[in-house]
């Protein structure tokens, strides 16, 4: 187990800079998720930590030691690949024991380690099988077993669940969380799925175009996203964004009039706001509730019934629309006029550049 830290990390492919000055401190035993849209550089960062990708600038430290010039082997990390990368010609036992075999570990010790990992993951019955005889979920477990056996300084996961079907993904997510509780190891996990990130992580690093946008706990990311990108990326369904202007800011409250009618009040944030200043109003779909005198008015465009929940898509003015998350028993017809009020805690204000200027607090 070890802390992992990235300082001023850069990666260039020719003239193209894909990772721009990333600083990240991952504590010993922490479960950190790197999340972002595809192409944001999260996997590249993971591969740089693993030693599979050369570092163009800055440094990677594992357990306090700079590992920039070390081979993957010397870094003592374990990695679970998206494709699992199991050795197809080896049995599950041989796959899991391969690193021990290469390290010329004593036979009894290797057998004990394999058995322990197999017990943790429930692979005992499958040890003599080849990967092609396993289901997707079982292969996934073998890949994790291969990592556990090594007792590494840190576990690296590169989108390990994305090849599984939805039900299995949820199950493996739970198993992964339990695995972390049990082993208490440092884990760095890459995904583009914000639900996975929110449920697994102690801290999440949100990336966009090679930049670290925010590094915080899931709750902080949800409640105080630093900018519009993070606000939109975290939370499902996505945060609604409506255009507006500051009407008045006084006594710790900001009143915003929306471009397509209605007025919303937020507790004022760290930055001073001048009346007339254009702002973007972010409202979580779950912060809206139907109200007879509600400030947000629109007509129903689409209703998605999900059983326990209902998503109502509402057209607001000519160009804007927003989504409201309501209880499953909510009923509305297409074209109905509906009115909503926003709970102050779910409303965020961003300036024209997308930076957070005021957030409702819980």
């Amino acid at each position: 187990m070890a802390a992992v830290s990235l300082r001023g990390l850069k990666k260039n492919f020719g003239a193209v800079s894909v990772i721009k000055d990333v600083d990240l401190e991952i504590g010993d035993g922490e479960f950190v998720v790197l999340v972002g849209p595809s192409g944001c550089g999260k996997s590249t960062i993971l591969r740089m930590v693993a030693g599979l990708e050369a570092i163009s600038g800055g440094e990677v430290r594992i357990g306090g030691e700079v590992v920039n010039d070390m081979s993957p082997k010397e870094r003592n990390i374990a990695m679970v690949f998206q494709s699992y990368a199991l050795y197809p010609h080896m049995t599950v036992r041989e796959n899991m024991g391969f690193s021990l075999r290469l390290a010329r570990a004593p036979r009894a010790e290797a057998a004990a380690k394999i058995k322990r990992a197999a017990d943790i993951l429930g692979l005992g019955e499958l040890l003599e099988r080849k990967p092609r005889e396993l289901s997707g979920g079982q292969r996934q477990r073998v890949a994790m077993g291969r990592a556990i056996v090594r007792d590494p300084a840190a576990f690296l996961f590169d989108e390990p669940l994305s090849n599984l079907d939805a039900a299995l993904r949820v199950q493996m997510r739970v198993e992964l969380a339990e695995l972390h509780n049990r082993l208490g190891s440092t884990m760095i996990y890459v995904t583009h799925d914000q639900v996975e990130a929110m449920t697994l992580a102690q801290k999440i690093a949100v990336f966009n175009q090679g930049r670290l946008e925010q590094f915080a706990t899931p709750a902080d990311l949800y409640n105080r996203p630093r900018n519009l990108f993070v606000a939109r990326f975290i939370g499902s369904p996505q945060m609604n964004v409506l255009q507006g202007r500051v009407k008045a800011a006084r006594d710790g409250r900001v009143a915003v009039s929306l471009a397509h009618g209605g007025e919303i009040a937020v507790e004022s944030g760290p930055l001073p706001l001048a009346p007339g200043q254009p702002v973007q109003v972010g409202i979580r779909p779950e912060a809206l509730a139907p109200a007879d005198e509600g400030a947000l008015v629109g007509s129903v465009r689409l209703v998605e019934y999900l059983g326990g929940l209902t998503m109502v898509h509402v057209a607001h003015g000519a160009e804007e629309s927003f989504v409201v998350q309501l209880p499953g028993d909510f009923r509305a017809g297409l074209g109905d006029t509906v009115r909503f009020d926003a709970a102050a805690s779910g409303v965020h204000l961003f300036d024209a550049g997308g930076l957070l200027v005021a957030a409702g607090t819980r």
Partner: protein
Amino acid sequence: MQATLSRRAFVSYATRRKLVPYAYVAPAMALFALLMLYPMIAVFRYSLMDGAIIKRNPTFVGFANYVANFENPVFWQAVGQTLYFTSLSVIFHLAIGMGFALLLNSPLVNPTLRSLLRTLYVLPWLFTAVIIAIIWRLLLDPEGVINAILMALHVVGHKVEWFSSTTTALDALTFVNVWAGYPLYMVSLLAGLQGVPKELYEAAGIDGANAIEKFRFITVPQLTPIIISIALLDFIWTMQVFPLVWTITGGGPIYSTEVMSTYTYKQAFADYDFSMASSSAICILLMSLSATYFYVKHQKAQ
């Protein structure tokens, strides 16, 4: 509206469905029987006669021709030399083909140089046996370039008669065959190497494997199906090689490069003893069949 059913066919649909596959393979089977099966049976029949083709009324002699062959020391010399020639060819084809394939697949080699080398290394494949024979007879001529170089480097003290000495002829011939045949391995193995998932090497690297261990534990097992397929095919083909041997040494000097194919050819077209030649040909067939057996078994296991 009443839909009209088409008139019922004379043969039921189910029967026709069963017959169709046979109809598809029938032309190929007919050609196979005419061009392969019939000659094979004819050759086997000749091998049991005395003076087939030559005599007006050849007599049935049973396995006498086989016995005569087995009692001929040159036959056994040819069998031994065929196996020596074949085994060494296959081993060196594999070693050289693998070496070049690894080189061409290596990201450490400059891409421009790689494509240049790829073209160069495939060249031997483009020449026919006769051209190869001429090139190497000139190069390995006692007055040729190779001897000049070796003497300049003091590797040899005199002009070696590579193809004219009984001690060097078979090895020189094997060398030429190795040169002529490795590109098949190189191309096949290169294709195989490009199909090995990169993650396997990355995972092995993280597991602590060095370059040699990656080769041994990832590359070789991944390429095994290809290696077995081409090695068995090469074994079968090389055992029957005729043009290269015939045009370079013709089996000489003093039978020192006699292989089964040249031995058989001489029986047929120098001695005009087609019955003896047929019995030798059947022996080659049996030797090839034993290798084919492993090939088919391997293909089934795939």
